[in-house]
């Protein structure tokens, strides 16, 4: 998912003494494989992850580790395991999150099974570094998203980001990681940008997988950046792993007018974020999800109401394995034209 394979690989490399394979980058073949063996009406992340698993197994992996929960996704790992076993693959699959909770004892047992020499102290030590790494990555990503549309030299942000992630994966303690982060943040700020003071600003919200895996949203953020738009996205791994419940509580508290009870997955957060984006006078909101994503479908009318109360335009996209790219481009282009016209 995006660049997050880097901290994940880092963590497992450090704590268990086994060979870690990273799944190949998602391509059309991944989704083709995934769709072929998935139920047709399952949401798209299922298809992507299944395709990735098949590719990883074909590359010789024999233990798969998954983090999943929040919505229907919590059941996917068992279903995918069954599908893959029916296909004749031999492997172990571990979902580190069970019934939406992280059980430390269970994870310890799993780790022990993967590597007998696994030490809990070493595990916690590197977990802490990884946690910080994700936090820094997300902070940098946020800065990139706000400015990448205005870079003077093409790809300067992406190249520096690659360089940073590469050096991140070589650290051994959290202090040197912090120093690196500060160093690169300065470098990022030095990248020449040509950003007008009142540029167009758009917030991107919706379902987490589609938001974070650029291949699955047809590089929507890249497309937006090409229109010279500043992009704000809240969903990232740091939020999902460490700030999820806190954000939901805050969301329920701050958006009482629109919802009484907690909605599943990120739906409540999305209501809150919509309100936030409206209050911060963003020019538009884009809500994206994979087709058949139940929590997000359920929350769309509420989001619609918030946005219309504040009179902020919002568009919705549903992505499936075979969405027409041209259709998305036309709608995005029209959205850009509209918010630009409203500005004038």
């Amino acid at each position: 998912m995006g660049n997050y394979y880097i901290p994940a690989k880092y963590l497992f490399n450090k704590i268990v003494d086994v060979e870690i394979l990273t799944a190949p980058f998602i391509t059309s073949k991944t989704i083709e494989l995934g769709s072929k063996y998935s139920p047709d009406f399952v949401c798209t992340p299922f298809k992507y992850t299944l395709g990735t698993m098949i590719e990883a197994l074909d590359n010789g992996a024999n233990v798969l580790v998954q983090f999943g929960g929040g919505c229907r996704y919590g059941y996917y790992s068992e279903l995918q395991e069954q599908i893959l076993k029916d296909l004749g693959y031999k492997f172990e699959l571990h979902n580190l999150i069970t019934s939406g909770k992280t059980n430390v004892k269970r994870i310890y047992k799993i780790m022990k099974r993967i590597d007998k020499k696994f030490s809990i102290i070493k595990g916690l030590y590197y977990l802490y570094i990884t946690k910080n790494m994700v936090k820094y990555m997300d902070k940098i990503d946020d800065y990139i998203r706000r400015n990448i549309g205005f870079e003077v030299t093409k790809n300067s942000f992406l190249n520096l980001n690659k360089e940073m992630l590469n050096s991140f994966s070589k650290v051994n303690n959290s202090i040197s990681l912090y120093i690196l982060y500060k160093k690169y943040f300065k470098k990022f700020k030095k990248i020449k940008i040509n950003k007008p003071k009142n540029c167009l600003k758009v917030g991107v919200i919706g379902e987490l997988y589609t938001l974070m895996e650029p291949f699955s949203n047809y590089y929507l953020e890249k497309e937006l950046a090409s229109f010279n738009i500043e992009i704000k996205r809240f969903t990232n791994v740091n939020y999902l792993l460490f700030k999820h419940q806190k954000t939901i509580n805050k969301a329920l508290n701050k958006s009482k007018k629109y919802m009484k009870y907690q909605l599943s997955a990120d739906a409540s957060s999305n209501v809150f974020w919509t309100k936030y984006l409206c209050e911060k006078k963003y020019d538009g909101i884009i809500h994206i999800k994979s087709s058949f994503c139940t929590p997000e479908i359920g929350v769309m009318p509420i989001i619609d109401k918030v946005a219309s109360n504040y009179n902020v335009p919002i568009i919705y996209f549903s992505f499936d394995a075979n969405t027409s790219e041209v259709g998305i481009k036309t709608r995005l282009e029209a959205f850009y034209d509209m918010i630009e016209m409203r500005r004038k």
Partner: protein
Amino acid sequence: MNCYLGIDIGSISTKGVIIDDNNKIIASSYIWTEGNPINSVKKLVNILKNSLDKKYVVKGIGTTGSARKLIGLLLDANVIKNEIMAHAIGTLSIYPDVKTILEIGGQDSKIILLNNGIITDYAMNTLCAAGTGSFLSSQAKRLNIDIEDFGSLALKSNNPVKIAARCTVFAESDLIHKAQVGYKKEDIVAGLCKSIVLNYLNNVGKGKKINSPVIFQGGVSKNLGVLKYFKEILKTDVIVDSNSHLMGALGIAILSKKNSVDKVYDLNIQDINFDTKAIDCGGCSNNCEILRIYKDNKLIDIWGNRCDKYIKN
């Protein structure tokens, strides 16, 4: 004198207008695309050229519609814009106070909401072509009715049949069933027109506030039956302009005028040979479909690549 050409290349029809400096239409044409946008544009440009007074020079070309990119490239257009903007601009030039634009075209349908001449919201149909012109024309063929008589036939009915409007496949089986149990043709046709309206309002117009003045356009706006049911269900007057099918082309012509650079365009494109060649790249597992466009056997552009392997030159 200066004039500007706007072309709207849709899935079913190709529309073209030429306007003068005052946005007045001085030539227009409407022909079928027949699955070949390049040929139909050649034909269209020829028709427009012949009806154009010799005193005019073309100073700008704009393209819109689903083949806008390809045709824009071939004609070297100075503006290539999506249909939503084109329709809004075109309609605003005639009805400056329009609040809602309902548009049903060949394969897509859209709603555009405006306030004080600014687009405030829009929606387009997603996923399927239920409730669009192509559905109507295929059903007309099934019932052996000329599509141009479809609307007037629907007006004859006092008792439109109920047809499941959610999905074209269901609608069609419903339609066959209704025909087999002996409903009159005009009742079935009227039912179809009504189902188009219901489908449109449920899918595209869902949750949108439709304020008058309401303008209805796109090819289907010429269908009197559909217009009747829009008026009936929305309980408001719905205006169909005599040029309603040309609004997209008009809008893009106006945009082209606004962005015109000092360049004179030649409308003699009959003998230019345009060719597109598609290959599957095969360089990685993305297997991009690479489309190469040739003008008189000279490569002018390449589309479809996700990486930098295929770039022009």
